């Protein structure tokens, strides 16, 4: 069973629909007990970083996710804002602390003159390092993006995919059993469903977890 974390922000229904379409049972929940039963977690979300962290805290989800992801090593996929929440901090509307699993600061895109923000639409995913998420996805496949902020990752080894909007920036992050994508696989038709299916099909102890560094607690302590 796949649990889609429901903290009341963003279009979570489409994530659930996509998971169901891929033949997996999906529950939309904010109940820690139910999250604990899931094989994998998906953290979706659109909106503002600070508000999202506040909601996660208010629902007791920060504590629950720490236990499930850090102690039980449950695989998690963050999508869009959900991916940014996996990072240490965001500079959107002030400075906000995130879940801290990926050593990255979420910053505003500065694409330069003539390029509009938000970055909305279909853009390439450049596969900069091998990832089990990319199985069956052609190089430079297009994915649907809608965002103004991106994860500025301090450890290049954790960046497996990038896009280009007035300059390259990370869109796919991977650290052990923690995965994040800036684009919306659930809104990216065939290739999006393939990527999502790859995450759902992951058998981590044999594949990704062995190939990438293990997850460690973030510097600076826990929220």
């Amino acid at each position: 069973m796949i649990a889609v974390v429901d903290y009341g922000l963003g279009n979570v229904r489409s994530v659930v629909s996509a998971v169901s379409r891929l033949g997996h049972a999906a529950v939309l929940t904010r109940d820690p007990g139910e999250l604990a039963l899931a094989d994998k977690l998906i953290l979706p979300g659109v909106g503002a970083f600070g508000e999202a962290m506040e909601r996660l805290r208010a629902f007791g989800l920060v504590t629950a996710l720490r236990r499930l992801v850090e102690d039980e090593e449950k695989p998690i996929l963050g999508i869009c804002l959900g991916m940014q929440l996996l990072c240490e901090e965001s500079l959107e509307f002030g400075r906000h602390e995130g879940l801290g699993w990926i050593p990255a600061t979420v910053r505003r895109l500065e694409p330069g003159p003539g390029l509009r923000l938000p970055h909305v639409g279909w853009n390439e995913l450049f596969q900069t390092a091998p990832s089990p998420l990319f199985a069956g996805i052609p190089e430079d496949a297009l994915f649907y993006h809608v965002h103004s902020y991106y994860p500025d990752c301090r450890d290049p080894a954790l960046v497996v995919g990038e896009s280009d909007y007035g300059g390259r920036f990370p869109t796919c992050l991977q650290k052990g059993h923690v995965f994040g994508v800036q684009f919306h696989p659930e809104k990216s038709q065939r290739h999006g469903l393939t990527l999502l299916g790859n995450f759902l099909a992951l058998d981590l102890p044999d594949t990704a977890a062995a190939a990438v560094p293990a997850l460690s607690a973030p510097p600076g302590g826990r929220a």
Partner: protein
Amino acid sequence: MLRKRLVTVLTFNQGVLFRTRNFIPDHRYTANFVDAWSVDEIVLLDVTRDPAPCRPHFQAAVSWFAERCFVPLTVGGGVRSLADFEKLLGLGADKVAINTGAVERPELIAEASRRYGAQCVVLSLDAAPHGDGGYRVRTRFGTRDSGMDPAAWAARAEALGAGEILVQSVERDGTLEGYDNRLHRLVSDAVSIPVLGCGGAGNWAHFAEGFEEGGLSAVCTTNIYHFTEASVKSAKAFLKARGHAVR
């Protein structure tokens, strides 16, 4: 490179998919075929004049699309409050289009943007030419002159937190004569967020002109696929040949 988008706008009247001309529902069109696997985005608009009794039918249509189409879904029509946002997002909308509701109470843009993020808030701006040579924003299904200049309203909406602007030409709607690119250019030059243009597309060259002359990030159609057997794919082949980056 970010691709230019082809967006299909589907209008619903009394819960039934409709085509329109000059914003007036036209019964001749009943069937529809959306090539959901090559269109880049879908917009669903409820254009029912007295929406309350038919709202459940429209909402059922929103759910139907949300469950089957794995592309971004924008939904609008009669949105007046954050509760309306909540309802549509809960049905599976990715973005919500606000039009008359924003003109009547511009703070709705700011409130929705703060809660759901700018990317969720699409200002739907209907405009028609004015006797003074400019344009005016229309509300209430294009029937009421708000007195506002489209470029100024677009810029204000961006400042309030809108993430995209969908500009619709009341005059060109359903005519297949081409976009009003003077209108689209006025708006796209006034803001730095993406602008989607709608109203008047009758052939693939009109799409290219929307990008080239209108400065659009996305070209929308409400009617063209209803009349032609040509698909979105053929439109994209045409645009690629003309040097536009499309998916």
